[in-house]
């Protein structure tokens, strides 16, 4: 160990420390490097480097280039510290490294002399407190611009009687109060009834799609866990639907599913003779299953990708220990893999749910503007309510209802799952 350290170049231990920190614990503002004095930093470096980095290295070296279940942290540290020499002008012992108390004017600064004066006039405490907010400022501004402003405008629109008469000048549209909402939730009227129908169709559709996508994803990820010949090729192949542009993928499906000239019917009817009469896939009750198949096809590679990444993070020791205790493959899946994947699943299922429930592109490309009654998903339904009938206020009200529903589901889901997690 000591010998190893002596051989290492002077800059290496610090880098190890930086990466190590980041990968193990999220850096708090107090801890992001510059708050340590040179001596402290060097001392900490040495200790950490001594205990962690070489251990990681040794393991990698002994386990070959691709150890089946490398402990993620150690592996990350070892590979990064040994393979990525960061262009780094500073060394840990450099006297220029700022220390906790270094606000003195003789501290070296960037060449821009003008800013120096301004920055120095701001107290350190304020500067330190403001930094995180400044850093996220661009993201916050973008978020406001891209998401919140349109959302607020949409909410505003939902209280207006915004029809074609007022398209040119929205401000002239009369205030409708809650009329748009009462119409939308009045399930005795045609508008409310069709919205409810569409909502229920979407719920069933989402549950089935997310379930199937997750199932396929976990199967794919578990089967791909061990290394075998052609694994990389298969992985890449599995990810194709995710990489394809939505339009290109779904329009191909719509060709496949056509009644007379589609490949699906050609195989099912002409070659396998499963049906006497050619079934319809894009209209009528089969359209519901068509949209599920297409959506699962589109979303399962994402589940696969995320679960595969999750599996990589499960330490190999757990499997070894389980195997030693005599657990078979199925038992290891139930007792190690699935529980360890819980945090991943928690996020994955939520994201899949939101994407699927809201999906507009897939049904729009598959069915066009007028979706079949049986596959009348809510996003298309709202689009129709606003664009096709030119009643943008009513469409906005439905969108707001959808937003509220999704918010409630998300909140309940997060509370429920995190409670279960803390119980465990």
């Amino acid at each position, binding site marked *: 160990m000591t010998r190893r350290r002596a051989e290492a170049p002077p800059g290496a231990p610090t880098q190890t420390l930086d990466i190590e920190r980041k990968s193990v614990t999220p850096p708090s503002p107090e801890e992001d490097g510059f708050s340590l004095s040179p001596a402290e930093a060097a001392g900490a470096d040495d200790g950490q480097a001594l205990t962690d980095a070489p251990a990681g290295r040794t393991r990698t070296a002994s386990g070959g280039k691709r150890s089946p279940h490398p402990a993620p942290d150690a592996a990350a540290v070892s590979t990064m510290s040994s393979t990525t020499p960061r262009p780094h002008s500073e060394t840990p012992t450099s006297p220029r490294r*700022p220390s906790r108390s270094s606000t003195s004017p003789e501290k070296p600064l960037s060449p821009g002399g003008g800013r120096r004066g301004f920055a120095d006039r701001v107290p350190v405490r304020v500067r330190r407190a403001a930094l995180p907010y*400044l850093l996220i400022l661009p993201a916050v501004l973008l978020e406001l611009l891209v998401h919140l402003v349109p959302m607020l405008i949409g909410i505003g629109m939902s209280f207006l009687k915004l029809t074609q008469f007022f*398209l040119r000048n929205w401000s002239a549209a009369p205030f409708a109060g809650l009329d748009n909402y009462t119409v939308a939730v009045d399930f005795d009227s045609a508008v409310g009834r069709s919205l409810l129908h569409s909502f229920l169709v979407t719920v069933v559709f989402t549950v089935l799609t997310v379930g199937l996508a997750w199932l396929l994803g976990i199967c794919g990820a578990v089967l791909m866990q061990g290394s075998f010949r052609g694994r990389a090729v298969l992985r890449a192949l599995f990810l194709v639907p995710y990489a394809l542009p939505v339009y290109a993928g779904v329009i191909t499906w719509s060709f496949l599913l056509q009644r007379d000239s589609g490949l699906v019917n050609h195989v099912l009817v002409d070659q396998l003779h499963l049906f006497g009469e050619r079934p319809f896939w894009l209209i009528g009750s089969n359209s519901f299953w068509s949209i599920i198949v297409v959506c699962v096809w589109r979303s399962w590679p994402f589940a696969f990708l995320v679960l595969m990444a999750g599996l990589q993070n499960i330490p190999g020791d757990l499997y070894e220990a389980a195997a030693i205790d005599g657990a078979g493959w199925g038992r290891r899946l139930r007792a190690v893999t699935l529980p360890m994947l819980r945090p991943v699943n928690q996020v994955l299922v939520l994201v899949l749910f939101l994407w699927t429930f809201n999906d507009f592109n897939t049904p729009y490309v598959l069915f066009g503007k007028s979706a079949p009654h049986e596959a009348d998903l809510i996003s298309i339904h709202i689009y129709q309510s606003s664009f096709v*009938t030119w009643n943008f206020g009513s469409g906005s009200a439905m969108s707001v209802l959808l937003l509220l529903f999704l918010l409630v589901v998300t909140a309940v889901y997060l509370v429920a799952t995190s409670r279960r997690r803390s119980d465990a």
Partner: protein
Amino acid sequence: MRRRKPYLFAVAGALVLAATACGADDSSSTAGSAGGSAAQTITYWASNQGTSLENDKEVLKPELDRFTKETGIKVNLEVVPWADLLNRILAATTSGKGPDVVNIGNTWSASLQVTGAFVPWDDALLKTLGGKERFLGPSLAATGAPGQPPTAVPIYGMTYGLFYNKKMFKEAGIDKPPATWDELIADGKKLTKDGKWGLAVEGASVSENAHHAFIFGQQHGAELFDASGKPQFDSDQEVAAIKQYLDLMAVHKIVNPSNAEYANGTEAVQDFVSGKAGMLMWQSIATQLKQAGWTEDDYGLAPIPLPGPSQGGKQVNAMVAGINLAVFKTAANKDGALKFAQFMTSKQTQQNLNKAYGSLPTVTDAYDDPAFESQTIKTFQQILSSTAAPLPQVAQESQFETLVGNAMNQLFADAASGKAVTAEAVKAKLTEADQQMGG
């Protein structure tokens, strides 16, 4: 050093954000309508009249070149597919950023008129085109609500007729096109064999369905809107009319059930010109026929059968269809746009373009060209001037098209999958459409 960097990043990030925000603004305004060189350019959204968007560009290019030569104004042409056109116009209306000139389906005239997006063609403005009298009466009737200045000027006149395949008719032993509905059904049954069908319909096309709902509704004496402008789509007459149309597939089985999937407005025509169906109720399909190499020896055009005298409806067998040209109030180059309207309604352009599309000139003086003496054009002209009715010119017309058209899509889907399409089922769908109009 280390401590400065985050601030720099934050500031740089904010700057980049500001820069992109401005950039986006700039680019959208130039894309919308010809920014700086506005005086010399206009943007024109054409509708899809030919076999494809490319085909339209080819047809229009020589005319637009001529316009540029005559006036020095360049035309940025974009051909917009029918499925997108209305949405694009709505977006342009809302944002105030759009083209200078646009083609609209003439049935939308009244709906778009109330948005106030287009320059109204009052008498003074119409005079620059040669006055009201120059235009064909039926075409001018479909340019907006009665009593108001037209919201757009007609450029292509069209109507519905019954195309039939002469060779298939001969093989089936039919010597003349059907004149009554019974004959049409009987002929259709004779033609339906060996994977071929009597009639092709665009069963999932909202606008085609809505047009037929209107035409057959007229034959049954239905009115879509009552005198006060309230929708009444579910009248018994309208139910009977739509059922009659659906029954061609559901009961008489002279329409291929697969037609219930046809949505993009070209597939039924394709079935007809490829000989898969013997008859087609459609507007002009000159470019498609030409591309397939068909001449008047191969196909004939007859009026769609009128209702029997005992049926009590109106003697209507077509609608006044066509394309109108509208100028946006927000046009960056309004003068250029008005000049372009003048050019598009000029005798020469009317002759050239209507010849290419097989549609009817909308100005009387353009008919001296021998090309408009063909049997097909004569038949269309006859239908348009005698038995075609314009769709109701009311603000909710486009909603009628989409709601009733959609309802019929679903009914066709039911018919295609073998479900019985009863009068009650039709009525239920229409009542729903009626209620969705809201008011």
